């Protein structure tokens, strides 16, 4: 069987990368990250570079990594939140749905294309990270795991945003849901974990508070990233519940998304009415 690259992916890449905006974003981001890394390294030693020590270098690495995680987490919805709802608003979705590409092809194309620029940003910052190798403090395996988890987070957020973009009929609402999800992941879950841990520390008998604290912490990509960096002490495979939880969330969101794209598939359900036109 002949293999074809998803045509939607090619189209999206072409559309996203042909304007001056994409190179500008990449250049500005790399410049900002490089400047910040150099500034932090320099500031740590008060300008006396021979004083750079591995522990200080690792602090810089941790700070830059966490900052990058925050940036990509909040940039991902900007690329993904209007992906399908935008097609609907531009009235291009109906035609797309009459092609053999199908709902899964559309969702796959949208997820990969909307996360591609962020993946590119993360990969392009590798040389910036290599600055910390100069002074030790971070081993390549740790850098790889940190970057790997950033890539996983980008994909997770992009998938969630694309699915919300499919479920919400308007881009305004899909953007609200997308940023709401990122806020929940990075702020609310972390705050819940912290609050429950504080509760446990005040009342060590309440072991369930500690269990829930670990649960919520594990859903916060910043916390998991911090665990990879060794900034916080966590269970060795703290990323596993993260991946499991969001896999379940994605599976749940996939059902209404497919319903929006192909209501016909769900016509056997008693509560589904035949109002396909408004979804397309």
């Amino acid at each position, binding site marked *: 069987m002949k293999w074809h690259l998803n*045509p939607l992916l090619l189209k999206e890449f072409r559309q996203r990368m042909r304007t001056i905006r994409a190179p500008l974003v990449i250049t500005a981001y790399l410049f900002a990250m490089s400047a910040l890394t150099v500034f932090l390294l320099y500031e740590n030693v008060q300008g006396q570079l021979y004083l750079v020590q591995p522990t200080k270098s690792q602090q810089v690495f941790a700070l830059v990594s966490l900052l990058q995680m925050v940036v990509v987490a909040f940039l991902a919805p900007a690329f993904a939140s209007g992906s399908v709802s935008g097609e609907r608003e531009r009235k*291009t979705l109906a035609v797309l749905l*009459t092609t053999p590409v199908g709902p899964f092809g559309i969702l796959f194309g949208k997820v990969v294309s909307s996360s591609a620029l962020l993946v590119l940003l993360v990969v392009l910052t590798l040389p910036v990270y290599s600055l910390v190798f100069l002074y030790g403090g971070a081993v390549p395996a740790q850098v790889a795991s940190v970057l790997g988890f950033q890539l996983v987070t980008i994909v997770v957020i992009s998938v969630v945003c694309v699915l919300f973009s499919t479920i919400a009929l308007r881009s305004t609402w899909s953007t609200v849901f997308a940023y709401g999800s990122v806020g929940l992941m990075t702020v609310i879950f972390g705050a819940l974990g912290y609050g429950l841990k504080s509760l446990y520390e005040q009342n060590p008998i309440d072991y369930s508070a500690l269990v829930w604290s670990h649960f919520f912490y594990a859903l916060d990509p910043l916390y998991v990233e911090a665990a990879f960096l060794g900034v916080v002490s966590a269970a060795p495979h703290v990323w596993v519940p993260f991946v499991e939880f969001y896999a379940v969330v994605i599976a749940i969101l996939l059902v209404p998304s497919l319903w929006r794209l192909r209501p016909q598939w769900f016509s056997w359900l008693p509560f589904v009415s035949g109002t396909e036109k408004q979804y397309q």
Partner: protein
Amino acid sequence: MILTQNLTKRYGKTLAVNNLNLNVDRGVIFGLVGENGAGKTTALSMLATLTLPSSGRAYVCGHEVTREPQAVRRAIGYMPDSFGVYDDLTVMEYLRFFAQCYGVDRRTISRRAEELLERVRLADKRDVYVNHLSRGMQQRLEVARCLMHDPDVLILDEPSSGLDPKSRLEMRSVLAGLRELGKTVIISTHILNELAEVADEVGILLRGELVAVAAVQVMVQHSSAYRTIVIDGRDLGDDFVKALFADPHVAEVRPLAPGWEVLYAGTLAQQAELLSRLVSEGFSITQFREQPTDIEQLFLRLAAIQEGAIS
């Protein structure tokens, strides 16, 4: 090539399409005519696999639309009534993208795109961004887009809607050119005159029901068989209308302000007899003139007569 059997679509209590029975043979260009809200778009979107029928069956190229939707999608080129285009794509890239969606190989894409751009008169626009084209050009490009994967059936929903008269003429000529390709085409419109040069058969859809199907030639013959007469005079009331209907050739009488409009199926001699009889019966007639009947007016009248029969 296209067959529907009691195809019905309900939206809640609204019956959008009611027991639609169509049979469009291979290579036929079929026009589906109806006013806004008649059910044309719903009927076509069921054929295009976008909408699931509430009951009944529809077959495109032998594939049932609900059971083999993928096969139907490969067999059709669908142009919706209201569509958008992608920004930041040139005309060529736009056609290439949709061809790739159907898995058309690269060499065929370039050749076919060039041919189709010639056909829809956009060859000189191949490197222009799609969003920079005029509405008329975008609609012609959509016709080319529908043909990129060489489908057997084209489903065109109001392809000329929203166009100025010049663009409408250009689109009409593009649609007329489809005949050379031997495709089976179903076109919906609420402007019947557009179909006179394009379609082989025409069906009238009225409140979701197909009330008439006929060859365009028959429609044209009908339009030449009927003539419209405008009559005016003093105190022409109900007695006058009764007197008109005494003539078996009078099909319909409609009030005008002032006067009456008569749809007449008789010959010129019979028309003269009608005038002399009316005068002899004492009606004071100041105006008795024939005005051209176009195919669209005739269709609307026949539809109205059918509507009366239905209700």
